[in-house]
């Protein structure tokens, strides 16, 4: 039975009428057409679908859209301020922290949540799998945000 949910995505309020078996990732990608978060494993094992829900990183492929009722969701699409990239995005570009870029939105969102609670990291992103696996450069990308490079 469909339910009505109200949630905020990247600052915009959305009232949606949805089936309970829709995942948060499905809602973002199919209903809101926000294609940044990707599905790569479908079981919460890789992190390509990571978005931030009420400040915490979640694997959107294993969160129901109805669970996001009343929550604030941040996705990669909401990270830049207008034309200005978020420092993390800038840093990923400057450090070549991606190759195919498929998992990059999820990795950046994990990194953002991580830096929010841990501004001086040594290592992060352990829940993310990246098959181009430029983890070293990803660390650089993450750590560069005002912190000494880690190798």
């Amino acid at each position, binding site marked *: *039975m469909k*339910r009505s949910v109200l949630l905020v995505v990247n600052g915009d309020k959305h009232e949606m009428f949805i*089936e*309970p*078996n*829709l*995942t948060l*990732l*499905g809602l973002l*990608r*199919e209903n809101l057409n926000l294609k940044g978060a990707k*599905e790569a494993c*479908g*079981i*919460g*094992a890789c*992190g390509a679908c*990571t978005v931030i829900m009420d400040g*915490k*990183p*979640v*694997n959107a*492929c*294993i*969160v*129901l859209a*109805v*669970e996001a*009722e009343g929550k604030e969701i941040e996705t990669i699409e909401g990270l830049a301020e207008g034309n200005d990239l978020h420092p993390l995005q800038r840093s990923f570009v400057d450090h070549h922290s991606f190759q195919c870029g498929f998992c990059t939105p999820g990795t950046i969102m*994990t990194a953002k*949540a*991580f830096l929010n609670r841990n501004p001086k990291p040594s290592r*992060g992103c*352990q*829940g*993310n*799998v990246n098959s181009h696996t430029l983890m070293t450069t990803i660390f650089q990308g993450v750590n560069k945000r005002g912190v000494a490079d880690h190798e």
Partner: protein
Amino acid sequence: MSLLPEFEYKRPESLEEFHHLLSDYKGDAVILAGGTDVMPRIKMGLKKLNLILDIKALEGLRYIKDKGQNMRIGALTTISEIKKNKLIKDKYPSLHEAAKLTASENLQQRGTIGGNILQDTRCLYYNKPEVWRKSFRPCFKVGGDICNAARGGKKCFAVYCGDLAPALISLGASVRILSKKGEKQMPLKEIFTGDGKSPFSLSSHELVKDIIIPPDKMRGGYEKLRMRKAIDYPVVNIALSMGAGDKGRLVVGSAGATPLIYDFPSHDELSGIPEKAQNDMSPVNNMYLPPLYRKSMVKVLSDKLISRI
């Protein structure tokens, strides 16, 4: 998009509402907290369900209380909160270390202690999508009459792979369980049935309210062997806690459907336990690494843990 089956979704806000919803309900209900373990199972068609009861909105199930007496940890407390709690780190190192080594940082922020304890058993032939399982005959765990991992096996050998329960059992923890009839408390170790098919004695109308850990500060630790340094479930995991006079308990996880538990009255008695535990474990070929290796790691990990405590 990987698909979920159809179900109803309810999010009770009070325990009354919760009990009311459950007692009236005729179909199969799944209780949802963090969802990190149960949601992949639902996606794989491993849970028959008509209703998801999301308990995250329930008042008063998320706390770590310690007033000098028993510590009480609400079932909805996240693994991350447990990991970060200084009192737990100080008093119950085995629990702290277990939380630290659970899954990954992201999943720790979502997964709850209740959900982690009550995660279902796992098997290489079971935790797979329905389409995949069509290549096999239905096994005990899906209601069939054979075991695909141990041909000729007369029961389900699925393995309990929780990280927190072995640590909590080593600490002598109990659980408080709520149902419409009221509240009951039992030692955590007693919720395990020993049956891989349905590993817990809780009925479908019962809910874990919190976990109670005895007040005494314990020495101890947790060793987990896993293939990669993040995400993976344990190959073997050992928890050890001991209090005054080195009286304590060693618990072996991922050994079968239920953790193996060894009490010892003093340090002298502890030394024989690793070998005994290893002999007690009789794994079958149902995990990624072979059974003999898993078995042989029980003593190795136990010895390592004992020597560092």
